[in-house]
């Protein structure tokens, strides 16, 4: 490991630089991914994305970083067509909430071309998108919709919880020959941590135990890893040993790692910041009661957002999001 600390945002920026340096077919496109300031002989500077994540890339690769119109269907649809014909586009969907404006090119094109064409196409597309609540961005800028992309056969979906994984998962995503949705949870984006130098990949479908334990398994990913770790810390103080598993990749899903920790502890609590119906939490619980039934000593509990839109007021948003308290309460229900 390294001592060098970066934010997730900076780690993503670094991964994009590496990917573009190592492969001339990689392009970036999206609304404001340059962000103005790319005019010839101009005295103005670019923003590098609405959250500054892509800052500097247009200067390094002026022909391959494209500010687009506000046209998500056009952006993603064009990226699919470009991917199928020889480019390796990284498209930015500014907020995951905007999935509703570009679902068709993902659902019916990117995800299905290869299958429909009998294996004769490949769509090496990466869609970077910001998900999750926690910034009072309200109902249309705070959703965690990765359960939708996870459920669509033909797509892959990954979500890092820390800067090192963010860099490695993004490099894997860009180099994967399939369409990949790369989620950047808002509350994780500016968290900082050690990030290895240079070019490396984190493989998909490999969950990671981020804390060992023996009494209960807390399964988390993205923003909820921190919540699960906080809960584990406090549970430890009360004498309960919690193992924390970071899924990292939602499709493919590391079923083996889930069943292994379940076999070890006999109890599972899944922590997900998305809404409850048909989510990752339900899906993992269903796996547990199908394949892991013999090892299950307790009900499987899900700590998720409630079945309602994300509220604006801070008190309400705080109550909306999964917290260490709620995880601890769920664990308490098991005994």
């Amino acid at each position, binding site marked *: 490991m390294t001592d060098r600390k970066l934010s997730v945002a900076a780690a993503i920026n670094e991964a994009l630089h590496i990917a573009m340096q190592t492969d001339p077919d990689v392009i970036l496109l999206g609304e*404001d991914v340059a962000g103005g300031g790319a005019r010839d002989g101009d005295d103005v500077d670019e923003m590098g994305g609405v959250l500054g994540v892509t800052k500097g890339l247009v200067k390094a690769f002026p022909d391959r970083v494209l500010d687009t*119109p506000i046209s998500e269907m056009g952006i993603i649809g064009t990226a699919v067509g470009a991917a199928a014909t020889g480019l390796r586009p990284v498209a930015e969907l500014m907020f995951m909430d*905007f999935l509703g404006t570009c679902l068709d090119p993902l659902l019916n094109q990117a995800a299905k071309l290869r299958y429909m064409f009998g294996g004769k196409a490949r769509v090496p597309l990466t869609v970077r998108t910001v998900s999750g609540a926690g910034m009072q961005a309200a109902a249309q800028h705070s959703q965690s919709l990765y359960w939708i992309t996870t459920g669509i056969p033909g797509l892959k979906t990954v979500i890092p919880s820390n800067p090192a994984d963010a860099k490695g998962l993004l490099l894997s995503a860009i180099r994967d020959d399939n369409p990949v949705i790369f989620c950047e949870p808002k509350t994780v984006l500016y968290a900082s941590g050690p990030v290895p130098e240079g070019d490396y990949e984190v493989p998909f479908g490999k969950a990671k135990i981020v804390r060992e334990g023996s009494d209960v398994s807390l399964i988390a990913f993205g923003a909820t890893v921190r919540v699960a770790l906080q809960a584990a810390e406090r549970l430890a103080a009360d004498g309960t040993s919690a193992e924390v598993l970071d899924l990292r990749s939602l499709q493919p899903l590391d079923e083996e790692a889930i069943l292994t920790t379940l076999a070890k502890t006999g109890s599972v609590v899944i922590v997900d910041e998305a809404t409850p119906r048909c989510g990752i939490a339900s899906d993992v619980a269903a796996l547990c009661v199908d394949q892991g039934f013999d090892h299950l000593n307790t009900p499987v509990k899900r700590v998720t957002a409630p079945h*309602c839109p994300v509220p604006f007021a801070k*008190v*309400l948003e705080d109550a909306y999001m999964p917290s260490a308290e709620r995880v601890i309460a769920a664990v308490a229900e098991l005994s």
Partner: protein
Amino acid sequence: MELKPDDLRLAYRHMRMIRLFEEKLSDLVQAGKLGGFLHLYAGEEAVAVGVCSQLQETDVVTSTHRGHGHCIAKGVEVPGMMAELFGRATGTCKGKGGSMHIADMDKGMLGANGIVGAGIPLATGAALTAKLKRTGNVAVAFFGDGASNQGQFHESLNMAANWQLPVVYVVENNGFGEFTPTEFVVPVRDIAERARSYAMRSEIADGMDFFDVAEKASKAIAAARAGEGPTLLECKTYRFMGHFVGDPLPYRHKEEAEDWIQNRDPLQGFERTVAERGLLSAGELRVIDGDVERELAAAVAAAEEAPLPSIDELLTDVYVETA
């Protein structure tokens, strides 16, 4: 179009309120008192107020992420808006919506909207209601130059043209979508040109001039009300502040911005015109300025004192509970 002195006083009041409201919000965010994503309307006051000055209370408008101006112009009460921005139980939306979702159905304000372009079909639907229920109402969709690149724009204008709906599409061309200059992403000079795809009437107004906007809006609204179908009204304008509060504005030419702000301020322009035409005196305007300032201060004070929503509110209003 006839504008009585009272109409002009109200228009000025609204424009001044919008300006001060936005300046106040900018201060409050910088002071760490407000959270969320805030997009301010300062500089574009003549568009919202010019158009809404020609509407009736039962007419419906839809708005954007940059919605405070449309709300104020359509008559939404400022104390409720301010309380909403503070996330208070007394807010227009009980604190659940915030800046991008302020709405007041009683005032015909069908919501700010965080999704670029999404208000356009909503207004189209409101116009369909007006037509089929013969209410005599007109719907207005406000949206940006950037939104004119959305599929929702195309699909909605086409439907409204086919059905000759009573709706006015007001595109606020402020030269930027976030940080990207409009000319990077819109290959025509005038967005009004896009009306031709639907055999729709169009008009271009100086969006910094209340009188020009009001006059062109008045014609479009009258046509809609008379059953003559929709109009695309482009208002050329400029946002005086950043895209969002905190935007450092590196992408914008300073001289360009200064030119608009110094020379084309819609409030100053209004003041010049009413003076030239002898419609309202500077003294009258200063009285309004004072009133607005006091009102706004009171709204902020009230919002700061107002109760937070109860946690029980988290799960209400998701569905209409049918008895």
